[in-house]
């Protein structure tokens, strides 16, 4: 950036100096000298402009090389880091979806086991109470003993099954480690891309100054605001508790809706 500031400084000081000389020449009626000065001014400006555009082109080229995009070989097997990052993120989506489904499958598999044991225990308990009140005759008691025996077996089996499922539910959380690593790598790439883009934008702004291009910032902002229109949806808010325009809990939603007369 040092050299850019120098060349821009040189251009501006030449501009100032020549402007004064130009006015003097014109006042004294020396038109030939004036034209010469204008020509010199143009040359300085063009030189700076070429320099900046050159720098911008070089930087753009090295950015493209950094991203490993080869424009000549779009079908190249070597994919760009951006494509690679997109694939990594869809891997995260796949892995988390798989883990969520596996966890729900296992939890759902536990429910009937527990329900069966509960209803068996309930019916046994009723008959057991009758036995305690000595309301059960010998033949029925023999039947009851068999049922208690089979319940104990079922209970042990059911326990084992549920314990196994719970163990598998814990194991299904192993995606966290893998997705965490992938997301960290993608985050690093995004940060790199951002700083490279920022450099390019800064260089482009130098070109704008040499070329005297002015942007309508108001219009640019308006276009951006339009893109932000929330009908499309924005997804989860990360800093909900720090933002005024975002609710941070269901209570906030309820308060807002009731203030609207809901």
């Amino acid at each position, binding site marked *: 950036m040092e050299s850019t500031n120098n060349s821009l400084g040189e251009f501006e000081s030449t501009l100032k100096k020549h402007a004064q000389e130009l006015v003097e020449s014109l006042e004294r009626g020396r038109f030939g000298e004036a034209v010469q000065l204008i020509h010199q001014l143009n040359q300085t400006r063009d030189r700076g402009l070429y320099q900046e555009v050159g720098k911008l082109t070089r930087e753009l080229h090295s950015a493209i090389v950094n991203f490993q995009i080869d424009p000549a070989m779009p079908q190249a097997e070597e994919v760009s880091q951006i494509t690679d990052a997109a694939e990594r993120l869809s891997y995260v989506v796949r892995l988390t*979806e798989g883990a969520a489904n596996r966890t*729900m499958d296992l939890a759902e598999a536990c429910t009937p086991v527990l329900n069966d044991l509960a209803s068996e225990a309930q019916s046994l308990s009723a008959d057991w109470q009758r036995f305690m009140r000595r309301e059960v005759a010998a033949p029925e008691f023999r039947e009851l003993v068999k049922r208690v025996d089979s319940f104990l077996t079922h209970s042990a089996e059911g326990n084992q099954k549920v314990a196994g499922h719970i163990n598998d539910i814990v194991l299904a959380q192993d995606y966290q480690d893998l997705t965490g690593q992938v997301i960290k790598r993608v985050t690093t790439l995004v940060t790199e891309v951002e700083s490279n883009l920022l450099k390019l934008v800064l260089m482009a702004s130098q070109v704008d100054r040499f070329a005297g291009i002015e942007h309508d910032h108001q219009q640019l902002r308006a276009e951006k605001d339009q893109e932000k229109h929330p009908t499309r*949806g924005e*997804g989860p808010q990360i800093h909900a508790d720090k933002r005024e325009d975002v609710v941070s809990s269901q209570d906030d939603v309820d308060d807002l*809706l009731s203030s609207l007369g*809901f």
Partner: protein
Amino acid sequence: MNKDMKILIVDDFSTMRRIIKNLLRDLGFTNVKEADDGNTALPMLNSEPFDFLVTDWNMPGMTGIDLLRAVRADERLKHLPVLMVTAEAKREQIIEAAQAGVNGYVVKPFTALALKEKIEKIFERVNG
């Protein structure tokens, strides 16, 4: 509340549809169908009668807010109770949904209790 009422769940993530379906089943509602965005939900709403619509906001194709507007604009569907279950948490979005005629708004992540309360409240009002 009629436990046999037919419910349509619209969300682009199958896991979220499954979670909502399971929560509804725990509440006693088992007559449930699923769609993955507004474009698949609308033909279903038009071809068979539903009693309740639960929809996400942010979906590819047709979003939940557009689905809500389409439902309210349709003479036969406009009285269908709609609950939005979404991660969209901007105040202006909630106001937008309210103005579009939503009956309830639950922000993700949500609890089973929050979902139950909203559903009960909606049907209290619809029946009362």
